[in-house]
């Protein structure tokens, strides 16, 4: 138990000054601008936006600068800022089917309508340190805008002709369909989840959840702890329109575009355990879904694996592995909450510890007396 302390103001002020100095580093080296972080550390920005819960690349870059690159601290800063803003509107659901794709791959079909675009990816790089970057000043080679002979001209019309991969399986009745229940989704930022919770609450918690934690849980399902036999059916990264319908206008208006990453996982076939569902009674592939702000592929893969593992009850699967424990995962995946409670151990616990110390001394004394008696 923590008992409040007071005092230490001067030391704390000086510690914060020192932090500021340390954050800035050697003054002979030029300071990083927020714009540089936003443009050149875009993947860190994407993670901070997703787990921080606000899409705003400039704010996320500022948070990264202020936290000296501690992304969990940056996420905390963004969450704190979030509480200072009013929520004006709720958007119409984004349509990832009309995404302007920057990357689109499928690990399940070689030929998919619209083709597979690798986009800007670390995949297939050799993971060798590039010392030319250390030498500085190199401008990346321009990708030519002329099409190579092997590329047909229709690849230019990307989003229009890109059917969703899983829809092709849906049409053949081989995979469970995602039905719209027309229910307003739960908002865990307004109503803390109670367990068991519905999938909308779960997905929202997983979006905000720590990437490392979810990655480890996803990995555990692959190693046999809640096996669900995943295939990356389709991964998309790109830009989608965001629109909302303000009461004062009564029609939908676009407010801009955001970059998102999406992963649709195809999982091992099973029979759905629900009499009211059109999917029931027939053995089909099952699915997991991952969605995140920015270029955030690993997060969406992890999220999709955990989303599927948490659907255990629907498919009569025994919840025997960590990745299948809903309350355990959702109550512990938020790194702001987790870091907060772990970090509070650093605060002075003098009174609490004194009582433990005294108790231990009394017990030892009692033990010595008994030993002396015998």
């Amino acid at each position: 138990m923590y008992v409040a302390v007071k005092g230490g103001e001067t030391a704390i002020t000086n510690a914060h000054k020192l932090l500021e100095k340390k954050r800035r580093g050697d003054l002979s080296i030029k300071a990083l601008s927020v714009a540089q972080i936003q443009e050149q550390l875009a993947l860190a920005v994407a993670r901070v936006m997703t787990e921080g819960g606000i899409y705003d690349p400039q704010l996320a870059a500022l948070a990264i600068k202020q936290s000296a690159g501690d992304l969990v601290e940056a996420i905390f800063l963004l969450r704190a800022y979030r509480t200072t803003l009013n929520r004006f509107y709720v958007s119409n659901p984004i349509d990832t089917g009309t995404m302007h794709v920057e990357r689109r791959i499928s690990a399940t079909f070689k030929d998919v309508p619209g083709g597979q675009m690798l986009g800007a990816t670390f995949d297939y790089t050799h993971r060798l340190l590039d010392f030319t970057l250390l030498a500085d000043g190199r401008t990346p080679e321009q990708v030519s805008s002329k099409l190579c002979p092997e590329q047909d001209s229709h690849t230019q019309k990307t989003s229009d002709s890109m059917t969703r991969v899983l829809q092709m399986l849906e049409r053949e009745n081989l995979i469970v369909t995602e039905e719209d229940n027309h229910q307003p989704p739960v908002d865990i930022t307004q109503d803390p989840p109670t367990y068991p919770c519905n999938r909308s609450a779960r997905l929202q918690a997983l979006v905000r959840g720590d990437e490392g934690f979810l990655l480890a849980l996803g990995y555990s399902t692959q190693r046999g702890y809640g096996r669900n036999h995943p295939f990356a059916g389709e991964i998309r990264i790109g830009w989608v329109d965001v629109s909302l319908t303000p009461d004062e206008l009564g029609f939908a208006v676009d407010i801009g575009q955001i970059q998102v990453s999406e992963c649709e996982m195809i999982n091992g076939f099973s029979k759905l355990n629900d009499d009211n569902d059109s999917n029931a009674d027939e053995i089909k592939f099952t699915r997991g879904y991952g969605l995140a702000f920015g270029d955030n592929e690993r997060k969406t893969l992890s999220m999709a694996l955990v989303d599927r593992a948490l659907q255990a009850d629907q498919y009569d699967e025994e919840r025997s592995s960590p990745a299948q424990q809903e309350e355990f995962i959702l109550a512990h995946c938020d790194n702001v909450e987790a870091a907060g409670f772990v970090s509070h151990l650093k605060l002075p616990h003098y009174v609490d510890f004194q009582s433990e110390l005294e108790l231990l001394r009394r017990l030892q004394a009692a033990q010595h007396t008994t030993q002396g008696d015998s």
Partner: protein
Amino acid sequence: MTSQQTPRQYWMSIMAKSAASELLSLSDTEAAQQDFEVIRAPEIGLTQVRGRMGGTGSQFNLGDMTITRCVVLSAQGFYGYGYVAGRDKRHAERAAQLDAILQDEACFDRVMTHVITPLTKKLEQQQDNHTKEVAQTKVNFFTLVRGED
């Protein structure tokens, strides 16, 4: 303009998606010619962004995004609304002013020609360049026959 959009939805969409600097530089003179009463000063807030499970199913909350909104009344009596992603108050205010101007038939053609059409072209061009770049990474994997019998 897409087939589902009304003209007003179209111009609001173009102004929201365009870079603030480009919208402002193309419309400075147009906005300076008119007086506007500010009904709701530009204010920054959040909009919750929703996605769908599996891309097509039930809705869930993905997170929030910043938004700036503004309402003005033009001297001709048109209410202009601006809703733009991000935290740029000038962007939202200018979008609201032009929304009011564009509803005025006397100004419509001029503003479409000098502001909205160039912005549309710019967005299309950016999109086109982008698509061509991505198309360079189109991949065809070949499945190899494995050695075992």
